[in-house]
């Protein structure tokens, strides 16, 4: 089964006087259990592609399928439901809801999903420990470092075991040790639960964990190589 | 426009929605205030005039104590010469003498207890609206004629009409039996059944005979035309007729204490409501300006490190508020003025007003007038409170440290 399939996606932004082609006839297929890195310089289109896959952004043309269901023509409500149930997100910045503690942020998605309080509390504690935030459960985002915040975001993205995790520069604010820990965690989930990962990054270290690396430039896929994990 | 003014103006429009919402609160209150104050003070004026012109007048000269007890014996001696003297002294005023008593009036069929007032037929119409309300027959003419004017409701009860005879039975000044037979000269219709049922007038000369008054009466009424200048007039009248054991001069406030107090009671409740409105607007402004100052902490930090004093920044915030307040004032006054102006042609009424109005000598439909005072007093107060509310955010700037402020996002 394919986890993600994009067919001939185009997306143009207008920035000032200029039209910027963020996606230029992009087609890509990602198998279930894939671990894909999208790599591109800034403005190369990787975030746009990630957003299109996550249903956050509608392409100007082309088709997007997630778990073999076409999503680019879904309504806002259906997209919200899709994101809630099937996709975990880690954004580049501003990942957390400021008024909620680390634990509450992790629980947030589960709570919206309707997971019982005891269960989601337990899961949140476990996952926070896994990402190395034991003892910081009750801090609010403002009282945490960038790396800590990012780990909370990762914990939230994976806590409800989504089939697909989309991450945009997840290690941007992390030191190398933490990055490694995080990637190990991703790989473990990928191996044991066949969670599909699509990660936009230009961090070489992250790429080294990938099973497949897709390079983009000016909205086009210029290279697509599979590699064995380290 | 100078630079500071331009800066203040631009700052306001950084958040147009917020500025409009805050201005909107002012416009709303100002419109309401203009309308309410026009209505209120217009009504008071009408209430005072209608009540005083009806009968009471603006000043009365009475025997001491009469105002409290209104006993028949508390008389003013030689009342006609006194009235004449006052008329000579104050030619511009409307002045008339009266005497009041109670009697049982009887027709062939019926009897009824009423107030009987002796009036000077030639002068009464200048101090009272009652002669003008005579709807059938005519008002009294001859000071000594055996005539009476009664209300329409009383005429119905007694089953009489103009030209019919009535018998008056009562007691005179000395307590002796007073009786007379009079012809109905006219019937008035005031629209107030209770009044029409219980009030009658006869010529003062006849009253003197019937009630054994010996030339005395109960009061001389002076109608000043309006309430302005009454205090001055009272002083002048007192100079002519020195108050003492025999006579006192009362102004309308003493004669109709209920009137002034009704107005006072109404004013205090109205001012309570206005006050609440104004304070709520002030809160709205306080909130907006505080937010606008907090948002600009970073920016203020920069300009302060460039050497601008907190005092000048505070003045900028006050100026912004003043501009907003001024817009609220102008728009509110215009809108309120338009509403009132429209009502001054079309009239204002609300359900139940008719019953209430007749109780206070007011018409059932009211036509408020736009005056400069009603137009500006409310909005100006709102404006001042607006500035007052902006003081706190403006003064907060003094606590700002440039370096810390710049670190704020």
């Amino acid at each position, binding site marked *: 089964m394919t986890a993600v399939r994009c067919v001939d996606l185009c997306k143009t932004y207008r920035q000032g006087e200029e039209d910027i082609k963020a996606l230029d006839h992009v087609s890509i297929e990602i198998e279930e259990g894939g671990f894909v890195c999208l790599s591109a310089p800034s403005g190369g289109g990787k975030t746009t592609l990630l957003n299109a896959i996550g249903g956050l952004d509608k392409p100007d043309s082309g088709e997007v399928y997630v778990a073999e269901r076409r999503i680019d023509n879904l309504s806002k409500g259906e997209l919200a439901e899709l994101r809630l149930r099937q996709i975990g997100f880690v954004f580049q910045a501003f990942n957390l809801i400021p008024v909620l503690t680390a634990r509450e942020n992790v629980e947030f998605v589960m709570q919206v999903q309707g997971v019982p309080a005891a269960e989601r509390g337990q899961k949140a504690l476990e996952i926070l420990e896994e990402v190395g935030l034991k003892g910081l459960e009750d801090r609010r985002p403002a009282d945490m470092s960038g790396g800590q915040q990012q780990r909370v975001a990762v914990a939230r993205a994976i806590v409800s075991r989504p089939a697909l995790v989309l991450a945009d520069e997840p290690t941007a604010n992390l030191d190398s040790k933490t990055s490694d820990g995080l990637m190990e965690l991703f790989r473990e989930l990928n191996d044991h639960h066949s969670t599909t990962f699509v990660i936009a990054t230009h961090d070489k270290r992250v790429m080294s964990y990938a099973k497949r690396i897709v390079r983009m430039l000016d909205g086009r896929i210029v290279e697509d190589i599979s590699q064995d994990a380290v | 426009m100078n630079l500071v003014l331009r800066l203040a103006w631009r700052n306001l429009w950084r958040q147009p929605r917020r500025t409009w919402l805050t201005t909107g609160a002012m416009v709303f209150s100002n419109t309401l205030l203009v309308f309410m104050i026009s209505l209120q003070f217009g009504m008071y004026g009408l209430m005072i005039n209608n009540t005083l012109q009806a009968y009471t007048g603006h000043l009365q000269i009475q025997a001491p104590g009469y105002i409290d007890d209104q006993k028949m014996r508390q008389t003013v001696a030689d009342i006609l010469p006194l009235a004449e003297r006052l008329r000579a002294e104050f030619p511009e005023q409307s002045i008339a003498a009266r005497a009041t008593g*109670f009697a049982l009036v009887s027709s062939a069929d019926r009897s009824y207890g009423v107030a009987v007032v002796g009036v000077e037929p030639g002068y009464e119409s200048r101090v009272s609206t009652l002669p003008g309300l005579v709807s059938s027959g005519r008002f009294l003419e001859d000071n000594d004629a055996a005539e009476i004017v009664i209300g329409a409701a009383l005429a119905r009860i007694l089953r009489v009409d103009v030209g019919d005879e009535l018998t008056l039975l009562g007691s005179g000044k000395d307590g002796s039996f007073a009786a007379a037979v009079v012809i109905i000269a006219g019937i008035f219709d005031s629209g107030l059944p209770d009044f029409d049922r219980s009030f009658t007038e006869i010529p003062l000369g006849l009253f003197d005979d019937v009630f054994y008054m010996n030339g005395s009466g109960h009061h001389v009424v002076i109608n000043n035309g309006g309430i302005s200048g009454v205090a001055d007039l009272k002083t002048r009248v007192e100079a002519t007729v020195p108050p003492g054991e025999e006579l006192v001069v009362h102004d309308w406030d003493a004669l109709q204490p209920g009137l002034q107090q*009704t107005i006072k009671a109404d004013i205090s409740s109205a001012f309570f409501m206005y006050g609440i409105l104004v304070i709520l607007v002030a809160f709205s402004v306080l909130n907006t300006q505080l937010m606008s100052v907090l948002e600009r902490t970073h920016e203020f930090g920069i300009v302060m490190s460039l050497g601008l004093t907190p005092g000048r920044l505070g003045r900028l915030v006050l100026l912004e508020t003043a501009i907003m307040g001024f817009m609220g004032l102008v728009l509110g006054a215009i809108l309120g003025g338009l509403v009132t102006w429209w009502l001054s042609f079309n009239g204002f009424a609300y359900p139940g007003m008719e019953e209430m109005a007749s*109780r206070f000598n007011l018409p059932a439909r009211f036509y408020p007038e736009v005056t400069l005072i009603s137009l500006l007093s409310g909005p100006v107060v709102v404006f001042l409170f607006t500035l007052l509310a902006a003081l706190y955010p403006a003064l907060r700037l003094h606590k700002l440290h440039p370096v810390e402020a710049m670190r704020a996002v």
Partner: protein
Amino acid sequence: MHMLAVLSRLAWRNLWRNHRRTLIMLLAIILGTWAMIFMTALMRGMVSQMVADGISSLPGHVQVHHPDFRDDPSVANLINVPDSEIAERFNAANFRQWASRVRVPAVITSEYDSRGVTLVGVDPALEDGLTFVDYREVEGRFLESADDKGVVIGRKLADILNTEVGKRIVLMSQDPDNEIADRGFRVVGLFTASVKAFEEQFVFAGKTTTQNMLRIGDQVSEIAVLGDDYRDVEAEFQKTLELINDGVTVQRWTEVDRFLGTMLGVMDGFVLVWIVVIFLALSFGLVNTLVMAVFERVREIGLMLALGMRPKDILGQIILESLLLLAIGLALGSALAWATVQPIRDGIDLSMVSEGMEMMGVSSVLVPELLLSDVVLANVVVLILGFFASLSPAWRAAQYEPIEAITKV
């Protein structure tokens, strides 16, 4: 339900994020709510008293008269059913209280003066608690039976007539054949009334004595029925109609005194207008606060949308936040209103403006009347209107595109 829990927590936390803004808004809401309820309690108190005093001067919630009695309240218009028969019917009907009386205009004369009054012939056993006269507060004594030979007059009238308990006065009226009907009485008691005008207007004598004096046999002019609640006298009205309806007019008190009747309705209208006006004054600040709150949180709203919250959840969250703010303000404001009414629940002395209050038909002690229904009304109206006022900012928040919102700096 779980969504509501999520939203409530977010709304609550967000409310206290900018605690200064929230506190200012909260203060405004508390003040507004307090003003709504406190003012309403005072006005209610005033109107209730006006109505209560008014009803006590009628008195009776449902009244039966001859059809012409209203226009001509005299001996000519008596009820066509003999009093003994009335007693038989009404006693069997199990009213809370009822009384029949004779009520005619009369002239009262002492050796010094005379006055027009309303003579009320009563059966003291039936009237206790129905009339405005408190038997136990009477100087001397109240009447003892329907054929008591004395009269009870008001203290004020006694002053005017220079009479006192034990002295004789003469009451003069007419019989149905228009013959003078008069009779000497001994004053046995002086009553006081909260409305001073009553002390001048009403004179009480025994019913049978009055019937004899007026030569009307066993007839009366008025039947009065007292219900449990003056606001709802429909049951008594219907029951009375069944007992007597031929050749008489049966009226609720609201019809007997239209001024008082409309007062209650006008008051209800006023309460609602007042609540809405205050709310509108508040609404600008409320919407402003919400607009600011949404504006500040664009990014996290985007995040929540990205994480799979639906737009309607965002809408709900903002509205919930607004309602939460209002609910806290309403609760505190209502509590404050209750607390401020407590120290004055026995009444505020308004003697400074007592005559004005009397002109409005109110005695000079104002007892605030805090009705639960008014508190509920204020709270419900504000919540409902608050809901609608929050719709626009909440709707805007829900319309954000997650990706645009999240990337907005």
